[in-house]
């Protein structure tokens, strides 16, 4: 089952957070510029096979678990992820979703992917998200929105993509 994609603006708070988190390195005598610099020596998010990252939704209704296929998120190459939406109350896959969408945003740059991500439901195994591509290093946010009836709730997963 495929779901249509809905684009949403990244919350302003996320931008502020990302700015604060970006490390201000490089205050050597040779440099004098303003602004943050990326940390090349930050822990890499190259995940071992089967590893995942997750986040609780805004109202706590569900938890989203993201599993990049191949064990990690590549820089500037297409990739796919498994997306699991788990009901907080039961610990089982969330039931009754009318639509589930996924987007990836880069608040510090004010943009995200310019691609619609297709989510294909797998019986008993969540969804497979295809066509993702993160073209820059730095802080990204995966937004998973679940619509159930008149309600729409988001789980937001932060992810630092490194070189």
């Amino acid at each position, binding site marked *: 089952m495929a779901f249509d*994609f809905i*684009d949403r603006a990244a919350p302003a708070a996320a*931008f502020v957070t990302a700015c604060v988190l970006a*490390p201000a*390195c*490089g205050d*050597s005598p*040779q*440099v*004098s*510029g*303003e*602004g943050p*610099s*990326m*940390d*090349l*020596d*930050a822990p890499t998010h190259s995940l071992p096979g089967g590893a995942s990252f997750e986040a609780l939704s805004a109202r706590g209704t569900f938890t989203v678990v993201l599993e990049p296929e191949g064990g990690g998120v590549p*820089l*500037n190459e*297409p990739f796919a992820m498994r997306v699991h939406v788990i009901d907080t109350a039961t610990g089982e896959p969330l039931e009754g979703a009318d639509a589930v969408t996924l987007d990836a945003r880069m608040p*510090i*740059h*004010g*943009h*995200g*992917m*310019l*691609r*619609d*991500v*297709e989510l294909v439901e797998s019986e008993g195994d969540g969804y497979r998200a*295809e*066509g993702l591509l993160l*073209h*820059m*290093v*730095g802080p990204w946010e995966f937004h998973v929105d679940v619509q159930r009836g008149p309600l729409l709730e988001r789980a937001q997963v932060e992810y630092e993509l*490194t*070189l």
Partner: protein
Amino acid sequence: MSGARTILTAAVLTGAAAAGGCWQGSPAADVGAPSSLAVELSEGMRRALLRHSPLPPPPPDPTNRHADDPAAAHLGRFLFFDERLSGNGRVSCATCHDARHEFTDGLTLAEGVGTGRRHTPSLWNVAHHRWLTWDGRADSLWMQALDPLEDPIEMGGNRADVARLVLEDDELRGAYESVFGALPGGLEEAASSPARPARRGEEDPPASVARWASLEPAQRAALDEVFVNLAKAIAAYQRTLLRGDAPFDRFVESLRSGDGDGLAALSPDAQRGMALFFGRANCVLCHSGPNFSDGEFHNNALPTLHGGEPVDAGRYDGAGVVKASPFNAAGRHSDAPDGEAAAAIRSLRRSSEAWGEFRTPSLRNLEGRAPFMHQGQLQDLAAVLEFYSDMAGTTVRGHHQEQFLQPLRLHEREKADLRAFLSALNGAPAAPELLEPPTSPRFAPSEGRLRPR
């Protein structure tokens, strides 16, 4: 070279410890650093450098089954320099993409039949880009080659005249048919007088547009077939526009192998520039990967050529054009309409946040490519660095732009170091025969495949 490897490894470890989690290199004044390593490299920096070299061969283009056919590339090279393809008979692809000027023209704005609104991008390593032109209005080299042929400002031709040229030039026809097979039936009548579709927003279209509208579908299909095939030949030639290894590649190879001899390929100035590039200056955020371009689109709030607010929608327009075109990777002229490129075009989103964005240019082979940026508004590399240093004259608009950009406040020495590093990205010259047309469009197998030296 075990001694050199030991020294280098020690220097790397020292750098990693000294960097304290910051990712730029710093001057290697410590005892134990080899003289050819002017900066200390943290482990993260070293990992980043290894990811930027070597530049692999271009990715395959399954949308063009002739992409790597030497005979098609030979024909394409002939066509690339052929002024007969233009409406006035005086403009070829090479007029703007001049091989003597690094496949650009040295001009601010392109000069074809008329004056364009953008600067001519260089074609070196162009096969590495997933989107073509400044705004990505094409998703393959062959799709890109089609538009300038009929653009009234660029070459001002039309697909019927191009087809007639193939019909009437026996040598060209022979070369065409040896690559693509027999010309389609009914082409003579279809190509008997100028014909092309109307262009988007075109006012007062020429008679060729009305004639196109009067043609039967089969006649249009015949003209399209020849038009596309010629573009696929030109694309096959453009895929060969590759340069050899640069000093930076020899430096990285030395890091990879542990053989310290190649470290001297980068001067101390260039190494400091490299540390800035991957470090505080954050150039690598957009100029990432072995081609030093993320291949995507950004709005860096550049000043406009003539002052005032920008009016070029850039990627916002380009995304709409490529998605709607019958010549994209998912279209009927593609040789892989269900492939990865087709999936990318189907999922491409045209969003207002792309307004004013332009494709990140590759920083390999910058030498001789000035002026820079999509309007050629920065006359040389010094002007580019000056802009990113103080960001004077930035434009502000009600659309998306990179919020991350801040003035780098570069010292003069830092600017010189960055220029030295960028110079170290100039690759070895390409084979000289790439730079001029063959005497005949017919391919002789003894000529072999065109590749950089």
